[in-house]
Protein backbone atom coordinates (compact mmCIF):
# COMPACT_ATOMS: atom_id res chain seq x y z
CA UNK A 1 0.00 0.00 0.00
CA UNK A 2 1.36 3.41 -0.93
CA UNK A 3 1.59 5.95 1.87
CA UNK A 4 -0.40 9.14 1.54
CA UNK A 5 -0.65 10.55 5.03
CA UNK A 6 -3.18 13.23 5.78
CA UNK A 7 -3.72 15.08 9.05
CA UNK A 8 -7.49 15.07 9.64
CA UNK A 9 -9.95 16.01 12.38
CA UNK A 10 -12.61 14.15 14.33
CA UNK A 11 -15.45 15.96 16.16
CA UNK A 12 -17.35 14.67 19.19
CA UNK A 13 -19.31 15.97 22.14
CA UNK A 14 -17.23 16.65 25.25
CA UNK A 15 -17.85 13.94 27.79
CA UNK A 16 -16.26 13.21 31.16
CA UNK A 17 -13.20 11.54 29.72
CA UNK A 18 -11.30 12.28 26.55
CA UNK A 19 -11.23 9.74 23.77
CA UNK A 20 -8.28 7.54 22.96
CA UNK A 21 -9.79 6.41 19.66
CA UNK A 22 -12.44 7.76 17.28
CA UNK A 23 -16.10 6.85 17.69
CA UNK A 24 -17.95 5.10 14.90
CA UNK A 25 -20.97 7.05 13.69
CA UNK A 26 -24.49 5.88 14.47
CA UNK A 27 -26.03 8.75 12.55
CA UNK A 28 -28.77 7.49 10.27
CA UNK A 29 -27.99 10.19 7.72
CA UNK A 30 -24.24 9.92 7.64
CA UNK A 31 -23.43 10.12 3.94
CA UNK A 32 -20.91 7.37 3.70
CA UNK A 33 -22.49 4.84 5.99
CA UNK A 34 -21.11 3.33 9.14
CA UNK A 35 -17.52 4.41 9.71
CA UNK A 36 -15.12 6.66 11.57
CA UNK A 37 -15.57 10.18 10.22
CA UNK A 38 -12.82 12.75 9.88
CA UNK A 39 -12.81 16.25 8.43
CA UNK A 40 -10.17 17.50 6.02
CA UNK A 41 -10.26 21.06 7.39
CA UNK A 42 -10.03 21.86 11.07
CA UNK A 43 -12.49 24.74 10.65
CA UNK A 44 -15.15 22.36 9.29
CA UNK A 45 -14.57 20.05 12.26
CA UNK A 46 -14.99 23.06 14.55
CA UNK A 47 -18.11 24.28 12.76
CA UNK A 48 -19.59 20.81 13.09
CA UNK A 49 -18.82 20.84 16.82
CA UNK A 50 -20.40 24.25 17.32
CA UNK A 51 -23.54 23.55 15.32
CA UNK A 52 -24.19 19.80 15.54
CA UNK A 53 -22.43 18.27 18.55
CA UNK A 54 -24.58 20.11 21.07
CA UNK A 55 -25.69 17.33 23.38
CA UNK A 56 -23.47 18.39 26.30
CA UNK A 57 -23.03 22.04 25.31
CA UNK A 58 -19.35 21.50 24.50
CA UNK A 59 -17.52 19.78 21.69
CA UNK A 60 -14.04 18.33 21.29
CA UNK A 61 -11.75 18.20 18.29
CA UNK A 62 -9.28 15.37 17.88
CA UNK A 63 -6.60 15.05 15.26
CA UNK A 64 -5.01 11.98 13.71
CA UNK A 65 -2.87 10.91 10.82
CA UNK A 66 -4.67 8.85 8.20
CA UNK A 67 -2.95 6.72 5.61
CA UNK A 68 -5.11 7.49 2.59
CA UNK A 69 -3.19 5.32 0.14
CA UNK A 70 -6.02 2.80 -0.18
CA UNK A 71 -9.16 4.90 0.02
CA UNK A 72 -11.74 5.68 -2.65
CA UNK A 73 -10.95 9.35 -3.16
CA UNK A 74 -13.93 10.95 -4.92
CA UNK A 75 -12.64 14.46 -4.17
CA UNK A 76 -9.20 14.66 -5.73
CA UNK A 77 -9.03 11.59 -7.98
CA UNK A 78 -11.05 11.85 -11.20
CA UNK A 79 -11.08 8.11 -11.91
CA UNK A 80 -12.34 7.35 -8.43
CA UNK A 81 -15.00 10.03 -8.74
CA UNK A 82 -16.28 8.62 -12.04
CA UNK A 83 -16.57 5.10 -10.65
CA UNK A 84 -18.29 6.38 -7.55
CA UNK A 85 -20.82 8.40 -9.54
CA UNK A 86 -21.48 5.56 -11.96
CA UNK A 87 -22.43 3.09 -9.27
CA UNK A 88 -24.30 5.42 -6.95
CA UNK A 89 -26.45 6.45 -9.91
CA UNK A 90 -26.84 2.82 -10.91
CA UNK A 91 -27.97 2.02 -7.38
CA UNK A 92 -30.52 4.82 -7.46
CA UNK A 93 -31.84 3.64 -10.85
CA UNK A 94 -31.88 -0.03 -9.86
CA UNK A 95 -33.05 0.02 -6.27
CA UNK A 96 -34.94 3.28 -5.85
CA UNK A 97 -36.98 3.54 -9.00
CA UNK A 98 -39.97 5.17 -7.36
CA UNK A 99 -38.55 6.45 -4.12
CA UNK A 100 -35.78 8.66 -5.43
CA UNK A 101 -34.88 11.26 -2.84
CA UNK A 102 -36.51 9.37 0.00
CA UNK A 103 -33.47 7.50 1.25
CA UNK A 104 -30.19 8.80 2.62
CA UNK A 105 -26.94 7.98 0.87
CA UNK A 106 -25.90 6.18 4.03
CA UNK A 107 -27.99 3.15 3.17
CA UNK A 108 -26.63 2.88 -0.35
CA UNK A 109 -23.12 2.96 1.09
CA UNK A 110 -23.97 0.53 3.85
CA UNK A 111 -25.40 -1.81 1.22
CA UNK A 112 -22.21 -1.65 -0.86
CA UNK A 113 -20.17 -2.22 2.27
CA UNK A 114 -22.17 -5.11 3.70
CA UNK A 115 -22.22 -6.83 0.32
CA UNK A 116 -18.43 -6.79 0.27
CA UNK A 117 -17.78 -4.18 -2.42
CA UNK A 118 -15.58 -2.15 -0.09
CA UNK A 119 -13.74 -5.09 1.48
CA UNK A 120 -10.47 -3.94 -0.07
CA UNK A 121 -11.10 -0.23 0.49
CA UNK A 122 -10.00 1.50 3.70
CA UNK A 123 -12.49 4.36 3.40
CA UNK A 124 -14.28 6.80 1.14
CA UNK A 125 -13.56 10.51 0.83
CA UNK A 126 -16.37 12.79 -0.23
CA UNK A 127 -17.24 16.48 -0.31
CA UNK A 128 -20.08 18.96 -0.28
CA UNK A 129 -20.29 22.69 0.35
CA UNK A 130 -20.32 24.04 3.88
CA UNK A 131 -23.05 26.29 5.21
CA UNK A 132 -20.51 28.21 7.29
CA UNK A 133 -20.86 31.91 6.26
CA UNK A 134 -17.18 32.49 7.03
CA UNK A 135 -16.48 30.99 3.61
CA UNK A 136 -18.89 33.14 1.62
CA UNK A 137 -17.34 35.49 -0.90
CA UNK A 138 -20.77 36.68 -1.83
CA UNK A 139 -23.81 35.45 0.02
CA UNK A 140 -24.50 31.74 -0.55
CA UNK A 141 -21.42 31.27 -2.74
CA UNK A 142 -18.91 28.99 -1.09
CA UNK A 143 -15.46 28.83 -2.58
CA UNK A 144 -14.27 26.02 -0.34
CA UNK A 145 -15.10 22.32 -0.43
CA UNK A 146 -16.19 20.67 2.79
CA UNK A 147 -14.41 17.33 2.73
CA UNK A 148 -14.89 14.26 4.87
CA UNK A 149 -13.60 10.75 4.97
CA UNK A 150 -15.42 7.75 6.36
CA UNK A 151 -12.79 5.28 7.50
CA UNK A 152 -13.76 1.61 7.40
CA UNK A 153 -10.37 0.27 8.47
CA UNK A 154 -9.19 1.54 11.86
CA UNK A 155 -5.68 0.40 10.98
CA UNK A 156 -5.05 3.46 8.81
CA UNK A 157 -5.54 5.83 11.77
CA UNK A 158 -2.49 6.68 13.86
CA UNK A 159 -1.49 9.32 16.42
CA UNK A 160 -5.09 10.00 17.43
CA UNK A 161 -4.95 12.81 19.98
CA UNK A 162 -7.05 15.49 21.64
CA UNK A 163 -6.55 18.91 20.05
CA UNK A 164 -8.97 21.38 21.71
CA UNK A 165 -12.49 21.85 23.01
CA UNK A 166 -15.07 24.57 22.60
CA UNK A 167 -18.53 25.73 23.54
CA UNK A 168 -21.53 25.17 21.29
CA UNK A 169 -23.73 28.12 20.38
Amino acid sequence: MSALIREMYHTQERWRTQLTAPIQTKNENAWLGTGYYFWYYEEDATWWGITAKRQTGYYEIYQAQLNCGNILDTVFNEDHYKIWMKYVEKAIATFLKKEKGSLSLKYINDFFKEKGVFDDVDGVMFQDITDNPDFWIVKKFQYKKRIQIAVYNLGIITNFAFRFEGKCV
Partner: protein
Amino acid sequence: MIDLKKLEQKFDALFEQETEETFKNWLHNKILKEALASMGKGSFREIGSIKDIPAKEFIYNPINILFAENLSTLSCNTQYAMAA
Protein backbone atom coordinates in the same frame (compact mmCIF):
# COMPACT_ATOMS: atom_id res chain seq x y z
CA MET B 1 -3.55 2.09 -4.38
CA ILE B 2 -7.01 0.75 -4.97
CA ASP B 3 -7.34 -1.75 -7.79
CA LEU B 4 -10.09 0.03 -9.73
CA LYS B 5 -10.72 -2.87 -12.09
CA LYS B 6 -11.29 -5.20 -9.18
CA LEU B 7 -13.55 -2.64 -7.55
CA GLU B 8 -15.61 -2.30 -10.73
CA GLN B 9 -15.90 -6.07 -10.98
CA LYS B 10 -17.26 -6.18 -7.45
CA PHE B 11 -19.78 -3.47 -8.22
CA ASP B 12 -20.86 -5.22 -11.41
CA ALA B 13 -21.22 -8.53 -9.58
CA LEU B 14 -23.38 -6.82 -6.97
CA PHE B 15 -25.72 -5.40 -9.58
CA GLU B 16 -25.98 -8.76 -11.30
CA GLN B 17 -27.08 -10.43 -8.08
CA GLU B 18 -29.23 -7.82 -6.39
CA THR B 19 -32.65 -6.50 -7.37
CA GLU B 20 -34.93 -3.77 -6.12
CA GLU B 21 -36.69 -6.39 -4.02
CA THR B 22 -33.55 -7.85 -2.42
CA PHE B 23 -32.33 -4.32 -1.69
CA LYS B 24 -35.59 -3.44 0.03
CA ASN B 25 -35.51 -6.62 2.07
CA TRP B 26 -31.96 -5.80 3.15
CA LEU B 27 -32.99 -2.23 3.95
CA HIS B 28 -35.98 -3.34 5.99
CA ASN B 29 -33.79 -5.61 8.14
CA LYS B 30 -31.07 -3.00 8.42
CA ILE B 31 -33.39 -0.27 9.70
CA LEU B 32 -35.08 -2.69 12.07
CA LYS B 33 -31.72 -3.74 13.52
CA GLU B 34 -30.66 -0.10 13.92
CA ALA B 35 -33.94 0.75 15.62
CA LEU B 36 -33.52 -2.10 18.08
CA ALA B 37 -29.87 -1.21 18.69
CA SER B 38 -30.83 2.40 19.48
CA MET B 39 -32.90 1.18 22.41
CA GLY B 40 -29.83 -0.08 24.23
CA LYS B 41 -29.53 -3.21 26.33
CA GLY B 42 -32.42 -4.69 28.29
CA SER B 43 -35.47 -6.82 27.94
CA PHE B 44 -38.63 -6.19 25.90
CA ARG B 45 -42.13 -5.81 27.20
CA GLU B 46 -44.93 -5.89 24.63
CA ILE B 47 -46.78 -2.58 24.51
CA GLY B 48 -48.22 -2.59 21.03
CA SER B 49 -48.06 -4.05 17.58
CA ILE B 50 -46.26 -2.95 14.46
CA LYS B 51 -47.74 -5.60 12.21
CA ASP B 52 -50.19 -3.19 10.59
CA ILE B 53 -47.55 -0.72 9.47
CA PRO B 54 -46.99 -1.03 5.70
CA ALA B 55 -43.46 -2.08 4.83
CA LYS B 56 -42.86 1.05 2.77
CA GLU B 57 -43.65 3.32 5.71
CA PHE B 58 -41.45 1.25 7.93
CA ILE B 59 -38.52 1.73 5.61
CA TYR B 60 -38.85 5.40 4.84
CA ASN B 61 -40.34 7.12 7.88
CA PRO B 62 -38.25 8.37 10.81
CA ILE B 63 -38.78 6.03 13.71
CA ASN B 64 -40.41 8.59 15.98
CA ILE B 65 -43.08 9.28 13.35
CA LEU B 66 -43.51 5.63 12.58
CA PHE B 67 -44.14 4.61 16.14
CA ALA B 68 -45.81 7.77 17.39
CA GLU B 69 -49.28 6.25 17.49
CA ASN B 70 -48.44 2.64 18.10
CA LEU B 71 -45.66 2.74 20.63
CA SER B 72 -45.94 6.08 22.33
CA THR B 73 -43.17 5.45 24.80
CA LEU B 74 -40.54 4.97 22.13
CA SER B 75 -38.49 7.95 21.12
CA CYS B 76 -35.41 8.26 19.01
CA ASN B 77 -33.04 10.96 17.93
CA THR B 78 -33.91 11.72 14.33
CA GLN B 79 -31.84 14.83 13.93
CA TYR B 80 -30.83 15.19 10.30
CA ALA B 81 -27.14 15.67 10.11
CA MET B 82 -24.24 14.76 7.95
CA ALA B 83 -21.80 12.84 10.04
CA ALA B 84 -20.61 11.74 13.42
